[in-house]
């Protein structure tokens, strides 16, 4: 019994991590129609910026309020980088999707290499509050606090994104802009601003995932973002492009599936099952679980 509880809760923690990575990806991918391979870079920036801040920024630290400041700094840095990327690299290329892919691939290579050139290839210990290393006993299962933190963060991010899409005009503008940017401008809307905003949010979500991922793994390394990205892509696609809710469902499905199959099955089967799930979902419902448009 407590194995099941343990696996469920840690599975949800994993799902939360996937969701945090996927949410930003899904937003940018589904709404701005940019297949953003540089998302892993934003993640890395968020993680390293948090790591740096905790050690060097006055007021920030590995614990208590200082930790919150450090994470905020990381998130800010991530969204700043995302905005810069959008302004400088992506903006001139809207409606040239394949070239965008090239640029984001280039960016992910160059960015990760830059992180490595600056901080080395070896994992660095991540500053984190002591409580995050401990466990909480839930129904007899020793659940890591870092996982619980991820779950809480994921729920908050989900709520915030839904509110943004539902209550602001930006959701609408972005969806329309994906279809036909020209026409949105012809309605008197500065569509570029909306797209920059999407990147800023996507970057912030990624950076948060990076920072909390750091807490979860206990280390940061340049390639960390990339390895999470593949599962995030799977989550985004299973969930349905641009659907934040869909990503949430898919993340839970993927996280739990992986966790349970890894325990009850043989090693590696978990990953195979996830990939199988992806193929099956797409063959049955090519638009993903939650349909195709960004109905928040």
């Amino acid at each position: 019994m407590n194995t099941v509880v343990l696996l469920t809760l840690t599975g949800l923690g994993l799902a939360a991590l996937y969701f945090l990575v996927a949410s930003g990806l899904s937003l940018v991918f589904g709404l701005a129609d940019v297949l953003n391979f540089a998302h892993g870079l934003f993640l890395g920036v968020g993680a390293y910026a948090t790591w740096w801040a905790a050690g060097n920024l006055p007021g920030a630290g590995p614990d208590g309020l200082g930790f919150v400041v450090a994470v905020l700094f990381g998130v800010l840095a991530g969204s700043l980088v995302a905005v810069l990327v959008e302004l400088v690299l992506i903006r001139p290329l809207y409606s040239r999707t394949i070239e965008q892919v090239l640029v984001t691939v280039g960016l992910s290579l160059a960015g990760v290499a830059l992180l490595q050139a600056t901080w080395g290839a070896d994992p660095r210990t991540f500053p984190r509050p002591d409580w995050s290393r401990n466990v909480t006993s839930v129904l007899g299962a020793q659940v890591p606090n870092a996982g619980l933190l991820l779950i809480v963060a994921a729920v908050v991010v989900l709520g915030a994104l839904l509110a943004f899409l539902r209550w602001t005009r930006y959701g609408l503008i972005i969806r329309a802009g994906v279809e036909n940017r020209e026409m949105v401008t012809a309605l008197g809307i500065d569509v570029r601003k909306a797209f920059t905003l999407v990147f800023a949010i996507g970057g912030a979500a990624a950076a948060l995932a990076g920072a909390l991922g750091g807490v979860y793994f206990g280390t940061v390394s340049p390639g960390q973002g990339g390895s999470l990205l593949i599962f995030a892509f799977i989550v985004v696609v299973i969930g349905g492009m641009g659907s934040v809710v869909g990503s949430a469902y898919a993340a839970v499905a993927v996280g739990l599936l992986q966790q349970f199959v890894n325990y009850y099955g043989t090693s590696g089967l978990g990953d195979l099952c996830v990939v199988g799930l992806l193929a099956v979902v797409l063959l049955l419902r090519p638009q993903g679980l939650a349909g195709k448009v960004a109905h928040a």
Partner: protein
Amino acid sequence: MTNSVVDAPPAQVPDELTPGRSRWHGLRPYLPLVALVVAAVLPYSTLNLPGIFEGPLNSPGTLQLLAICLVFGGLAAGYDLLFGRTGMLSFGHALYFAAGVYGTDVLVTKAGLPLWQAAVLTVLGGTTLAALLGAVALRTVGIAFAMVTLAFAQVGAILVARDFGGLTGGEEGLPLDVSGLPAALVGVTNTVNLYWLALAYLALVVLVVHRVSGSPTGRVLAGLRDDERRIGVLGLDPYRFKLVAFTLAGGLASAGGVVYVLIVGGASPHITSSELTLSLLVMVVLGGPGTRWGPVLGGILYMYLDHRLTAFGSSDAVNSLPAFLSHPLSQPLFVLGTVFILAVYFFPGGLASLRSRLTPLRRALTRRS
């Protein structure tokens, strides 16, 4: 629409369908042949290109590098049959290449088959695999198709990494057992034969892609790229044509794998990764999708950079720079990534568009003279 991620393949008219009319009109058909001959006699040259290659053109190191570049030129050209010519964005093309590499390696090293048998079996197997998986994946379109192909390739990657029965060697890879191989393909002194083999492969792929693109089927593929529904209404089954293109491209890729494993002398799991497919995409876009020479050039250039940048990164020129420059520059991937980004801005439409971009210049010059 979300599908527009793949709507974008380039508005290039296939050269093959619209023979140009220029001063070189009479000569043009022979240019590829000339290029082939030049490439074939290249190993007889002792030309030294300092900075570009480590040694003279006929040194084993240079020939080895060129051979790898040529294989990837061919691979990119084959991938372009899917992407540039038909508008199918597959993220799993590495699988068929890897099938070629591991297939040959396992059949030669573990099963002890003679090379030619292993090669034939592998190419047949790779083609069949492409046909089977394509038949399933092509039930979806657009980004879903990209992801299903990615999923299949990922399964391949996991299986290779799992190292079932010690067949693939997992992350350590599987060195090719050369004891049964023809002597002409073994040893540094025979690198030139591998070069010629790679050249032959490239020529084969270019010929196939060229012929197919200029064939009635190629015309249909070009139509598919623009509007699949319309093809159906004209009385052609889009599924069949896409499957043919997918299978053909898969077969060409696995043939490339056979050549590659001989050149490198072993298989390693790098080649099963989705990054390889992504690099293929980059090669094609870098070169100019849907053009005859663009993907080839893109593939060659990409591989050249990929291999040479490691030497560039550790060169004295870089090391003597201040740290904030030399550190990133000594990371090959940093330079490679930056090159992609710059390429997009400075050569939109890929290398192949350079010619047309230079045309106004040339015209201006000739007018003046």
